[in-house]
């Protein structure tokens, strides 16, 4: 470990950290935005869920490097390529959680909301989704941590992230930069995970803390 490498390469480390955040953090958030309508539709129309689940299961099994490669002819060696791929993986994790969360809303709660005069849309937004928040955020947490760690593989197709230091460190046989990138990626994943736990607590003040 050569500590002096860190300050003398500070600008580069910061640049690739930003690139990494763009790929690893943005993708699961886009995934969440797409998963909500998809999950709501799948929870509402039962016939819609089995085909969605099959597609999602198959997609999730595809190794990241192969998916990046498969997207090259249409999206090139670009950030977009990696963001689309990581968004797809996020969908695979979040959609089933949205469906599970909505399905777990107790029937009496639904009926009580209806009896209070809530229409279908208002009941969904103000009763069912808030109750599903812990399960949905549970999925988002897994998607976020996975995306942040998978983003480094994008370096193999030449899309910059903290993974740059893995490739460079391997080529120069210089472990310091590999350690630094490993620690930064794990710390980034951990930090985002903590933020999401905080968001869940803020959104569900009625849930007992354990």
């Amino acid at each position, binding site marked *: 470990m050569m500590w002096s490498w860190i300050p003398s390469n500070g600008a580069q480390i910061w640049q690739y950290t930003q690139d990494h955040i763009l790929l690893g953090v943005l993708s699961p958030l886009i995934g969440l935005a797409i998963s909500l309508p998809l999950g709501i539709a799948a929870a509402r129309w039962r016939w819609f869920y089995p085909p969605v689940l099959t597609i999602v299961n198959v997609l999730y099994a595809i190794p990241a490097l192969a998916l990046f490669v498969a997207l090259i002819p249409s999206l090139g060696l670009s950030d977009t390529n990696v963001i689309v791929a990581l968004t797809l993986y996020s969908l695979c994790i979040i959609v089933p959680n949205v469906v599970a969360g909505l399905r777990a809303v107790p029937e009496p709660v639904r009926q009580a909301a209806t009896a209070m005069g809530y229409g279908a849309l208002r009941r969904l937004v103000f009763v069912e989704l808030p109750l599903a928040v812990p399960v949905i955020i549970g999925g988002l947490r897994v998607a976020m941590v996975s995306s942040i760690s998978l983003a480094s593989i994008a370096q193999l197709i030449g899309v910059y992230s903290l993974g740059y230091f893995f490739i460079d460190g*391997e080529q120069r046989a210089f472990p310091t930069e590999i350690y630094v990138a490993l620690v930064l990626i794990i710390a980034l994943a951990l930090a985002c995970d903590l933020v999401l736990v905080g968001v869940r607590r803020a959104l569900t003040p009625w849930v007992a803390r354990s």
Partner: protein
Amino acid sequence: MSFFSYAWDWVTQSANWHGPGSIPPQILAHLGYSGLPLLIAAVIGIPAGAVIGHTGRFSVVVVNTANAWRAIPTLGLLVLLVVTLGFSPLTWLLPLVVLAIPPILVNTYEGVAGVDPGIRDAAKGAGMTPWQQVTRVEVPIALPLILVGLRTAAIFVVATATIAAYIGLGGLGRFIVDGLDQYQFGPVAGGALLVIMLAVLVLAFFALLSRLVVPVALRKQGRPE
């Protein structure tokens, strides 16, 4: 040209099917590099998960670290081991085994810990020893979840074995890594298509397995965990 036409052109060239380093030996190598760590991880993860689920000891640790393994960038781990220790079987086998254990262990734990207390009591009341309770009642009931864990681990191992081509491991990742290195998209696309097909076969294998070994009453739809 689309991905599939690039991939298909390369995969259907007969030259790519003959000789050392061609498609058939690399498919076998990939299966070996994935199967061996999965087997070792299952031998460690299933008993450990079952014991923790049965006794409840260390369950707090298991639940809180259930997803932590996903945070570890496998490419980083592989290059670190290769740079510090040099390339050896240990370099790729160790990280694959270590990272395949958590999904297997956690799902086994959840399956065993989630067994209906009434069933647990009945097994004890029928005079079963703890060993019999675990192996004859709890593990069979937990089987659907254990298979989900094994499937997650298998998917992970197949994907990571692909990436391990970068540090010099054989298998289908070789075509992708070498093709990228030589700016030839044919083998890159072809290798990726074969990897995708292998992953889908792994899924189909586990779907079949769960039909064969899981009792009808316990079947439910799996989902990515």
